[in-house]
């Protein structure tokens, strides 16, 4: 594969011919790009290869046929598991990241996600929702040009998920970062993204690339999002999103 700075000014350009694990072809030809500040959901049932595609976009998986380019600016990622260092306090988890700006900025970032009181706690002594928020704070503390998020709301209860959704929208508004958000939940895709890529089939390819009808204000309303789901996804073959 080749990897380069994007020449076109895009935040991310993926031009994948194939991704194999051994003999098995997991991802087929996939091509898309993100403009600066654009928020794109990557939707598909579990096991389609969303995480693999995120790893390819992040450059942690370079064993591919094709190439990936990222725009100027830092890269950050919110992993499905928070991947905090259990032996460092929440503040230190952020402060030790290059470009995060040290302990003071780290504390401010934690206050931002509502973890001011937990700033000195060990990650294992706070809830999963709180760990997720700390991981989000870490990602945004580096003032990234592009954030990759892998199922940022999975296994959170409804209340926590809705609070986290609002938080993600707010911090993306503030930093202006482009975001690629993997999810298996249609409503979540429409609640967060300007555009939705649908991944499906075997090997997985993009079966749809649609712009959301909801603007950034409209999608903050849960009922508006609910009402938009059915018409937006109509025409997509059933089964592609079977567990969505």
């Amino acid at each position, binding site marked *: 594969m080749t990897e380069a700075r994007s020449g076109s000014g895009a935040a991310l350009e993926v031009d994948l011919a194939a991704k194999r694990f051994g003999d098995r072809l997991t991802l087929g030809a996939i091509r898309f790009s993100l403009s600066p500040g654009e928020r794109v959901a990557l939707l598909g049932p579990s096991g389609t290869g969303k995480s693999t595609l995120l790893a390819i976009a992040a*450059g942690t998986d370079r064993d591919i046929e094709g190439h990936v380019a990222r725009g100027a600016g830092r890269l950050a990622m919110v992993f499905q*598991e928070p*991947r905090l*260092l259990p*032996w*460092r306090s929440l503040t230190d988890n952020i402060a030790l990241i*290059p470009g995060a700006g040290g302990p003071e900025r780290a504390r401010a970032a934690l206050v931002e996600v509502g973890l001011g009181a937990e700033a000195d706690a*060990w990650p294992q002594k706070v809830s999963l929702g709180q760990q997720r928020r700390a991981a989000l704070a870490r990602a945004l503390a580096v003032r990234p040009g592009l954030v990759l998020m892998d199922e940022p709301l999975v296994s959170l209860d409804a209340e926590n998920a809705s609070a986290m959704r609002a938080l993600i929208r707010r911090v993306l508004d503030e930093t202006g970062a482009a975001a690629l958000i993997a999810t298996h939940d249609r409503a979540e895709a429409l609640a967060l993204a300007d555009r939705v890529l649908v991944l499906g089939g075997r090997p997985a390819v993009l079966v749809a690339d649609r712009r959301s009808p909801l603007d950034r204000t409209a999608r903050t309303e849960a009922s508006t999002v609910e009402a938009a789901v059915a018409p937006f996804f109509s025409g997509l073959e059933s089964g592609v999103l079977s567990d969505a």
Partner: protein
Amino acid sequence: MHPLQAIHHQMADSRASRPGSRWRGGSEVAPGPSLPPILRRALWPIASLAGLIAVWWIAALIADAPVLPGPPEVLEAARREMAGDYFFHLGATVARVAAAFALAMSLGAAIGIALGMHRGADRYFSGWLTFFLNLPALVTIILCYVWLGLSEVAAITAVAINKIPNVAATLREGARALSRDLAEMAALYGLERGARLRHIVLPQLAPFFAVAARNGLALVWKIVLVVELLGRSNGVGYMLHLHFQLFDVATILAYAFGFILVVQAIELLILEPWERYATRWRR
């Protein structure tokens, strides 16, 4: 205990319990919440030790022979030796233990981590590791004295060579178990080499260092005595040899107990507090 068993024991243990609770064995049963924690922790070991001394004392009274002296005779011998060179010899041995321990821990850890991280190297050198793990301590000691002469360098080298394979085997397990998720996170966020080592690799290896250190101390000090017995003219091992020739069991025990106290003090005052500190983040 085999080092690997020790790791599993240790890992299972520390995962299951609150930080440090494994050292507070029996604190639930011990009476009096008014006792300071350090005393409560020491209660059971003290009771257990008192029992052992009682058994020894009774056996000595029954035997009533110079080859099995009781506690008073040993205390008397210790007092006599302390007026002489007791602390000089104890110090010489402690210095050798410290040097050999430091050498074995640093070299063994470097080798073990390298083997754990590079599968090719591990495949090639694991035969070597097995060879050195099974090489009898006495053979290493004799060969070192033959090849390097009856010197301090030979003595410390011999002890270190005995200990390095154990440390390497333990740390190899640790390095194999390093989290790929965290390594990936560190790479993505661009952490420097030094920061990765300090914040990501070493904290994951800390329990393995603790096991290697604890097993290491026990092994090193036993081998140091043999090294001293065979080719040094000071130290506890040398004094044991001397009094063995005189059949002076009371003095032999006086030196042995002095050394056990030193090793226990290192365990209680250095290793355990460090381990509690290093695992304080566990839930």
